């Protein structure tokens, strides 16, 4: 869970232009990719803590 909170705040990871992906500078595509990271982390925690049926 901490990963999902901290990684998107590390500006040095994404504050740049190259490499481009489909014409998107890194600043944009990498931050959009972090959404996927957030979903993955939260989903794992949800699965681990789900109430037993």
């Amino acid at each position, binding site marked *: 869970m901490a990963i999902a909170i901290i990684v998107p705040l590390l500006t040095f990871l994404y504050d740049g232009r190259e490499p481009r992906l489909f*014409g998107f500078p890194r600043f944009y595509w990498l931050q959009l990719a972090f959404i996927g990271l957030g979903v993955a982390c939260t989903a794992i925690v949800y699965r681990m803590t789900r109430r037993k049926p």
Partner: protein
Amino acid sequence: MTEINWTELVIFSALFLIVAALGFVASRWRRPASMHHLDEWGLGGRSFGGWVTWFLIGGDLYTAYTFVAVPALLFATGGNGFFAVPYTVITYPIAFLALIRLWSVSHRHGFVTPADFVRARFGSPTLALLVAITGIVATMPYIALQLIGIEAVLKAIGLTGDSFFARHLPLIIAFGILAAYTYQSGLRAPALIAFVKDALIYIVIITAVLYVPHQLGGWETIFDAADGKFTAAKKGGLLLADGSQLQYITLAIGSALALFLYPHSVTGVLASKNRDIIKRNMAALPAYSLLLGLIALLGFMAIAAKQHGVAPLVIDGKPDNNTIVPVLFDRMFPSWFAGIAFATIGIGALVPAAIMSIAAANLFTRNIYVEYLAKEATHAEQARVSKLASLVVKLGALLVIVLIDPQFSIDLQLIGGVLILQTLPSVALGLFTRWFHRTGLIAGWIAGLSAGLAMLYTIPNPATHHDHFGGSAFALSKLGLPWNVPIYAGFVAVAVNLLVSVIGTLIARGAKVPEGVDATAGSDYFADEGDPKQVR
């Protein structure tokens, strides 16, 4: 005055009316035995399942103003406006941890508002009153901003009007309809409408991000055009401006924390049926963030579409950046699709406005009316007071927009974010620890609030020639600190708040000031649906 585009207007009005009809029908949806209970009117019977919650919270947090203002920010300043993306990514893991506890304790004790929780946790009606007032004051301008979203669309359709009356009439009608069905159906109305709203938003935005770049020659061209504009203007840029990294991340953190302290988010969460639904939603809601990221990029598309005549509309001699997205739709899409897109933004304003007014009304009823005016109020009476309060709240927001400069509500919204953050120690930390003393928390609230307002007051806005409340980026050097970089003012304010809360707690405890009774127990924070110990 620009020409009215009739195709757009007709489609906009038709969709708007369909949604209004849905709002009235909603009172029959999952009809309870009686609507005369605050749980029914104000929380939809606390019975919403996974899908409804997803649409409701999604429709609640990603507002019309977001769709209008975030691209406008990218249009004007570039990369710094993209903070909305990390902000809405980190908010869910944080909320995941805090809100399931809030849901459980509220489920067992029948809390309707965050202030209800604070009252029981710290045994302090005063602290609860402060939390409630903060919530109401912070929510009001937020509702007003939804109106700005609708207004931006109406301007793009061409309904600018010559007289004062003609200009505001469409807005007043739209809001009258909203007020009527919220009064009638309570939280069920925005929940049902959210389905339509979100379906439309996904259609419009996916179409926009596929169709518009195709028209403009691809993403590469769009980013290059944006880059060119910022370089030429020597203002803004594709990446973060030098030294603004700290501002960027503190703004993201501050906004993420503020988002789930807003009463309307809490209302959406408490309306869900059980803990699993909330957890699942916190994992699934970031789908909207992806949408938001794409919407933000509409601001760059607008830059690249300059040769198609896309520029902010000039209203009263000032270019209004908020009209940039509606204008982009107007120029790039055929009229019929632009009409659908406009209706989407318009309906997008109605859902959050309804939830926010319900949340503010609940705060008034539970923490002011029942607490101080009518202690013995029955459930039916509470529901009635809340319904009336929701009308008053909306009327207030409308008056603010019509009578006062809209810029004023944007300023207020900025202040609102800083205000609501000051409830963090009592509400969010209170969910995890009872260590704080109520006196310390009250002192922290006062200190944080004063510090926040004082900082915001010193920030000028050169673009609008305002000397005060011009932004949220506070220069650390003003505090005599050696780093000459800006930081989000709310972040500093909440740090002050925490510090004073800690010191205040230690002093109060040392002086043996009574602690107040904690009406909650440790196991309350894990209670789930079907809980046997429910206190209702």
